[in-house]
């Protein structure tokens, strides 16, 4: 398959490096390499929702120009918040010619954005272009029914028209986890907000939300929680760190990016296994049946 331009976003180059590294490795393994968009700019999450605001769309629109410059028609984001923001901006400048003209006039040092670039999330690409069968084929260390909570968060599945799956009963992460051989744990908090940016100045709010999500997963038997967003990852990890075993009634589920789990299932040695996941893997391999390839 032809390589596709991908948008890392600020955190993936720094605090969320494991997300990017594992994603690049698994996509290479699947034969659909991701090429970093040159000279990308911060998407400016969360998308501005005001009708008259174009300034806060400029940063995302610039990335659409960069995509256009590569000759491609698609941009894949790994981070759900980046995906959501880029897609909302793309919807505006693709569909509203006036808005597009204004943004182009402002960004006079760039070539004009012509419209027509589609923004995708990596999970969409996996589901719709690679397919779960192909993912399953690539697995050479199935996850031995490790119970994994499929945590979606909000920006991946909302608002309507932007989300890659319905927010009532999304199935994309479930499809992925089954292909990897994991056992999917559903909780009523799968699409509940982790507290998002409230972590900055209202940490109490974010911890309240994040803890509920972790507890909901734990009480239903999850040993792992997968995320698709560096902010969800951060908030859930903080909740695990802050509340510990007593509040959680035992060892906390390991919170990891979905691509990190994929890398393990694919047996990609070059991708580092997150330390918190090792005990879970060890526990399950102890009881592993013979004949697993």
């Amino acid at each position, binding site marked *: 398959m032809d390589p596709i331009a991908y948008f890392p976003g*600020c*955190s993936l*180059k*720094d*605090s969320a490096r494991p997300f990017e590294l594992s994603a690049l490795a698994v996509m290479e393994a699947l034969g659909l390499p991701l090429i970093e968009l040159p*000279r*990308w*700019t*911060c998407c*400016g999450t969360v998308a501005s929702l005001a009708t008259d605001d174009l*300034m*806060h769309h*400029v*940063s995302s629109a*610039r990335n659409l120009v960069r995509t256009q410059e590569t000759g491609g028609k698609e941009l894949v984001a790994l981070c759900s918040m980046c995906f959501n923001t880029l897609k909302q901006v793309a919807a505006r400048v693709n569909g509203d010619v006036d808005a597009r003209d204004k943004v182009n006039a*402002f*960004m006079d*040092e760039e070539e004009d954005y012509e419209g027509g670039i589609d923004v995708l999330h990596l999970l969409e690409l996996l589901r719709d272009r690679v397919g779960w069968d192909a993912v399953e084929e690539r697995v050479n260390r199935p996850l031995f029914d490790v119970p994994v909570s499929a945590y979606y968060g909000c920006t991946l599945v909302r608002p309507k028209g932007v989300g890659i799956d319905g927010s009532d009963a999304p199935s994309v992460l479930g499809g992925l986890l089954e292909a990897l051989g994991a056992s999917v744990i559903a909780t009523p908090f799968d699409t509940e907000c982790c507290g998002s940016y409230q972590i900055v100045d209202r940490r109490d709010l974010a911890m309240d939300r994040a803890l509920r999500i972790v507890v909901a997963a734990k009480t239903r038997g999850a040993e792992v929680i997968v995320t698709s967003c560096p902010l969800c990852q951060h908030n859930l990890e903080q909740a695990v760190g802050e509340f510990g075993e007593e509040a959680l009634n035992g060892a906390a589920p390991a919170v990891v990016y979905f691509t990190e789990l994929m890398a393990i299932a694919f047996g990609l040695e070059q991708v580092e296994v997150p330390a918190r996941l090792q005990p879970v893997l060890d526990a399950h391999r102890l009881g592993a049946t013979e004949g697993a390839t």
Partner: protein
Amino acid sequence: MSDEPATTRIFIMGKAYDVPAGVTIMDAMEYAGYRFVRGAGCRSGFCGACGTVYRKEGDYRLEFALACQEMVEDGIHLTQLPFTPAPREDYVLEDLDPTENVLLQHYPELARCVACNTCTKACPQDLEVMDYIQAALRGDLARVVELSFDCIQCGLCAMRCPADIKHYHMAQMARRLYGVSASPAPGHLAERLQEMEAGRYEDELDALVAASTEELKARYAERDIEKSSEESA
């Protein structure tokens, strides 16, 4: 044919003056009677003191330059920005850990960047300012250093930024931090320092200190001077 030098009409802070054509903004302002007690320095395009905002006749855009470098044009409207009151963070260089998001810690407003590129358009040195702000936001210290290297701290970027980012202070911190933590130590410097600490130059220095004024003058007159490239050719 007139022997009078050509003049050009310019507007300084809204007031019209006729000044000689083909001179710099700084020269033109001084010709018009302005005295630079602030906002002038090297007069060679290096110190960043003489930031100028101007507009060409018939154009709606504001443009930015250094007064000592930019030539006047007929109908130019200009003003000086001799100082940008952007705060500089206090830090102890040795205490900074370059592996953390240090730049964001000291300049959190970096996260407010909307990538409007106004800073880049304001830069008289043609630097890719927005790009280095974006690099700082993602923790790429080396890239900040690379792109901001020729910054002369004129402050025009910070004046124009809608997010109130202090580009040049942040970049200076980045360059200092990089110098201390990441750029390779010059080997010859380390060697020389060792020699000095081992006392190699002590005798010579003692002799100089003990010498009389006449001796020093004589030594100075007879010192080795490195030949210029023309002489040695």
